[in-house]
């Protein structure tokens, strides 16, 4: 027997625990997805059933809207906030501390506070819109099929744009000052600087953060589940919630496992890209 390296020995307990908690469940999901309740192999039957369910394409479309809407707005608003917080102005330190509040507040607390603010009758948002006459009558934000998903995305954007701002701000602060001086000598204005100096310099940070946000949005359940549980009429049903409901409300563990396998595969593609980008960045910085 070859001697185990001391480094591996140190890492072994963590690796064993994670294998049991992560690798084993993944294998087990795969097994569940091709068997029935009696444990017989049934081939791709569970996959077929899931694909035929009417909710599956709905959930898939909702997930795309949810992830796309959330991530684009988080990145744009977060980057804009970072550029703002990198400017010199009185009270900047206070604004910086306040800007992280949404990120620090527990997700469920943020979700419920917004649910109260979006309340159709007594919500402060409807009051702010109706009082100056921006809209004629109160909007049923969380009960109308057309507004509920945008409302959910708004909450998610509010929650995570501070994270983008913190990460991008750290990147901005690392940009050498002489790049700006050179740009100014060339007669660049503020927006020229943002477009031609700032953004290209923080591009790697933005790419890494974007991928992370995509993964988080795909895994996110708290906000939607706490407020609508996927309703009304499945208009906020995203795939993770569909998995949960299929398994624990319809008690279709094997179909839920089949859906999990597909969801897992799709997510892992993005994770693989993320790790590739991250390691490429590390190599560059070494």
């Amino acid at each position, binding site marked *: 027997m070859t001697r185990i390296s001391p480094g591996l020995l140190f890492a072994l307990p963590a690796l064993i625990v994670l294998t049991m908690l992560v690798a084993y*469940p993944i294998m087990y999901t795969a097994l*569940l997805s091709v068997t029935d309740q009696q444990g017989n192999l049934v081939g791709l039957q569970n996959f077929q059933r899931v694909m035929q369910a009417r909710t599956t394409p709905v959930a898939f479309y909702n997930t795309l809207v949810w992830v796309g809407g959330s991530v684009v707005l988080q990145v744009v608003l977060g980057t804009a906030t970072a550029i703002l917080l990198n*400017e010199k102005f009185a009270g900047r330190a206070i604004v910086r501390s306040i800007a992280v509040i949404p990120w620090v507040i527990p997700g469920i607390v943020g979700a419920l506070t917004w649910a109260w603010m979006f309340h159709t009758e007594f919500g402060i948002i409807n009051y702010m819109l109706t009082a100056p006459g921006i809209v004629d009558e109160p909007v049923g934000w969380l009960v109308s099929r057309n507004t509920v998903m945008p409302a959910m995305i708004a909450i998610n954007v509010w929650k995570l744009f501070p994270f983008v701002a913190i990460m991008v701000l750290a990147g901005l602060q690392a940009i050498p000052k002489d790049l700006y001086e050179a740009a100014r000598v060339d007669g660049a204005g503020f927006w020229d600087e943002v477009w031609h100096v700032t953004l290209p310099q923080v591009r790697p940070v933005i790419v890494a953060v974007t991928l992370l946000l995509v993964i988080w949005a795909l895994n996110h359940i708290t906000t939607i589940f706490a*407020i609508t549980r996927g309703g009304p009429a499945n208009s906020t049903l995203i795939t993770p919630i569909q998995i949960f409901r299929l398994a624990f409300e319809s008690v279709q563990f094997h179909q839920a496992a089949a859906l999990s396998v597909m969801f897992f595969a799709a*997510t892992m593609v993005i994770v693989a890209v993320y790790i590739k980008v991250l390691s490429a960045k590390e190599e560059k910085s070494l």
Partner: protein
Amino acid sequence: MNERTRAGVIFTYVCAALVVAVCLFPFLWMALSSIKVLRELYTIPPVWIPTVPTLENYRTVLFDSNIPRYFLNSVIISVGSTTLALSIAIFAAYGFARFRFRGKAYYQSFILIGQLLPTAAIIVPLFVTLRYLGLVNTYLGLILVYMIITLPLSVWMLTSYFRAIPVELEEAAIIDGSSRLGVLFRVTLPLSIPGIIAVLVYSFITTWNEFIFALTFATDSSVKTLPIGLAEFTTEFDTDWGAVMAASMIMTIPIAVLFLSMQRLFIGGMTAGATKG
């Protein structure tokens, strides 16, 4: 900056004010709603500042609901999972930071993937396994499952922290006849206390806020955690929003305290590093 126009300066302040309003208002509204009486909560036009501030909502939450129990459950589960993960992560991080061994990069990626795993995709097999082991609706069950979240994070953060400690300090101890474990506990760990506290705080906050695992594996009120308890408040048709906001405040306070203390710690660590050059 002298060529910046007046309009630009005004634009900056308008944007800053907007950021402050958007980030602060929901929190303020939660705090204000939590001390309003029923009459002032449900009225149009809304009452901005409560005229008769009351602690009645807090009384309801603390004495007429399960929230105190859920609070205790959350503390037990978060502390349990955080400490358990840290004690395993210290060794793993030390192994990754100080040794070269075959397949190290793969093992590290494996741990990173654990952190990025789509949790919804593994709730089904985890539930089946926990049910088989009789661990559904137990503290131990959730503590173990939460290691999926806390362990990768702790290993990752501690590895980079250990790497930053000069290896010469450890070599000196080894020359003095100390064992590897002795070095870890007498040299590396005492130097890493700020990093360890940061890891503890971060894992505590993540588990404190965790939703989907708690929802799946703790369905009995004896082990339910705060996020689930809070969500339950609103699933009934008749939501007592004053109480929900009071319970939200109660859940936020420990996190706010931890975060503020951590911020000080981080700033302390940064300035200490700066003076040492």
